[in-house]
């Protein structure tokens, strides 16, 4: 018998709520259909009536977690249209901020995924460590979430000598913690049971479906904008693109934990080699006619902005493609064939923040009987299932 299960969409905490219609046979997902748009805010339409300076703030509010990545991507596109060359120091500060955001995002993700597995201690640990990096972002920018750091022509605040010591102290702590999480995630039997071999995305499918970011890198594809098209100061900083070949949720976890370690190294290098000088140049309000495409490796993958200017102070068109949209098709592929109990952890695997979706309704296809589940029910079901089966 085939069941149809609508999963999602609403949850106020998500920046990209998604509705999945699952077709379930026994306990296996056989088909997935996707529906977006529940918080479509029409940012691209709003942009037509705002000037370039106002849009810096709007770009930051596209996403709450990778806000800096969007602001950076937007600023770079406008700078290209203006033909502005930004100071070297600003490039380094941008790189540091982008990597701090990556660390922050990956700790957040680790915590959420642990929670989906019912491993609440790890969730608390990861989020406690995330506070350390958020405190550093707060110290530099004065804000915890929307940093307001990137602007057209550079950055708005400098990183001073006194900050560097504190940042290094936090980095040492976070590095030790990342080592600890590597140990837990490779040894803990309940984590291994829940993640190894779950939510497979073969490299062939990842390529065909144009997966980006850690999702692609966990399928062995070394796809990273930072090396393919170095922006900010990435061209001057040595780093490794982390890839794993497991193609499952476990690999996605290892990729992200290793990326935290890599980001820490990048920040250390950037702090040490940061040139002296000014942090921004003055930018004109009118932007000459033209088109610019800017790409940035956001914590979740490739972020691309396209701006067409008509010579006024407002863009003719501003197109944004955030990494989650690129990864949704891959997610559908991963989900077909998985067990009902694995849905939350597989969805969490691509880092879309939709795994805590509000409602789930079980519709019996033959009798039309409707059982409405909320996210908690699915979570309880999933953890009960594993407990009964494996005694975890």
């Amino acid at each position: 018998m085939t069941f149809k299960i609508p999963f999602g969409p609403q949850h106020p905490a998500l920046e990209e709520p998604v509705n999945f219609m699952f077709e379930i046979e026994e306990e296996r997902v056989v088909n997935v259909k996707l529906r977006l748009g529940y918080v479509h805010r029409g940012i691209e339409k709003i942009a037509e009536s705002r000037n370039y300076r106002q849009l810096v703030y709007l770009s930051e509010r596209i996403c709450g977690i990778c806000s800096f990545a969007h602001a950076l991507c937007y600023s770079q596109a406008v700078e290209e249209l203006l033909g502005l060359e930004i100071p070297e120091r600003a490039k380094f500060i941008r790189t540091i901020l982008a990597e701090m955001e990556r660390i922050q995002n990956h700790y957040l993700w680790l915590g959420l995924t642990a929670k989906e597995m019912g491993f609440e201690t790890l969730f608390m640990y990861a989020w406690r460590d995330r506070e350390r990096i958020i405190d550093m972002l707060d110290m530099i920018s004065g804000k915890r979430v929307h940093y307001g750091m990137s602007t057209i022509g550079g950055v708005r605040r400098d990183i001073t000598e006194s900050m560097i010591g504190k940042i290094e102290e936090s980095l040492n702590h976070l590095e030790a913690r990342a080592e600890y999480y590597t140990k837990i995630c490779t040894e803990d039997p309940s984590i291994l049971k829940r993640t190894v071999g779950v939510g497979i995305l073969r490299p062939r499918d990842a390529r065909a479906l144009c997966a980006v970011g850690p999702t692609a890198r966990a399928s062995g594809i070394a796809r990273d904008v930072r090396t393919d098209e170095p922006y900010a100061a990435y061209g001057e900083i040595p780093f490794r693109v982390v890839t794993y070949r497991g193609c499952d949720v476990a690999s996605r976890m290892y990729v992200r934990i290793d990326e935290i370690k890599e980001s820490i190294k990048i920040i250390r290098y950037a702090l040490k080699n940061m040139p002296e000088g000014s942090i921004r140049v003055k930018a004109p309000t009118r932007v000459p006619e033209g088109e610019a495409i800017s790409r940035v490796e956001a914590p979740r993958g490739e972020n691309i902005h396209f701006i067409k200017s008509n010579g006024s102070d407002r863009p003719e068109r501003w197109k944004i493609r955030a990494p989650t949209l690129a990864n949704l098709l891959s997610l559908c592929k991963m989900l077909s064939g998985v067990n009902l109990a694995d849905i939350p952890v597989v969805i969490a695997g691509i880092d879309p923040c939709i795994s805590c979706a509000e409602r789930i309704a079980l519709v019996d296809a033959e009798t039309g009987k409707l059982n409405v589940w909320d996210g908690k029910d699915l979570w309880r079901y999933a953890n009960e299932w594993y407990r009964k089966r494996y005694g975890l």
Partner: protein
Amino acid sequence: MRRSEIRKQLRIRARNIIVQRDRRFFVNIEKKDLKRVIRRLIRMKNYTHLSTITALDTGSNIEVIYHVAFTDALVSVRVQTSKDDPVLLSIVDLIPGAALYEREIHDLFGVEFEGNPDLSPLLLPDNWPEGVYPLRKWWSPDRILSKLGGK
């Protein structure tokens, strides 16, 4: 990647290939050549993925730009389709990852993609009135609002 390589592979006139800057190429093509060009383009060395598809309202036309990513460049293939009959061939058979981008443009610009098996609404609600394409310039926020029965 060099301009001559693209020209050789795509077999199109050199003036239709615009080098915007280092790593940025724009290729202007006719609507009928779209699939042939994309098919040849993704066979090139260093092809990674389709980054996204952008649509623009240029007045009488809808301009659709396919951003194809390579490890050493980003090639943007630009094609025009008239606003009265906005139909393009779908490229999902060549790049399955294009499915959502095509659906998005179908929603917001009303471009039909022949051959895409699922063009059901992706972003717009089920009760969205027909013929309202929110990102076309004519549909100002006020017009959309009055069509939807707002003030």
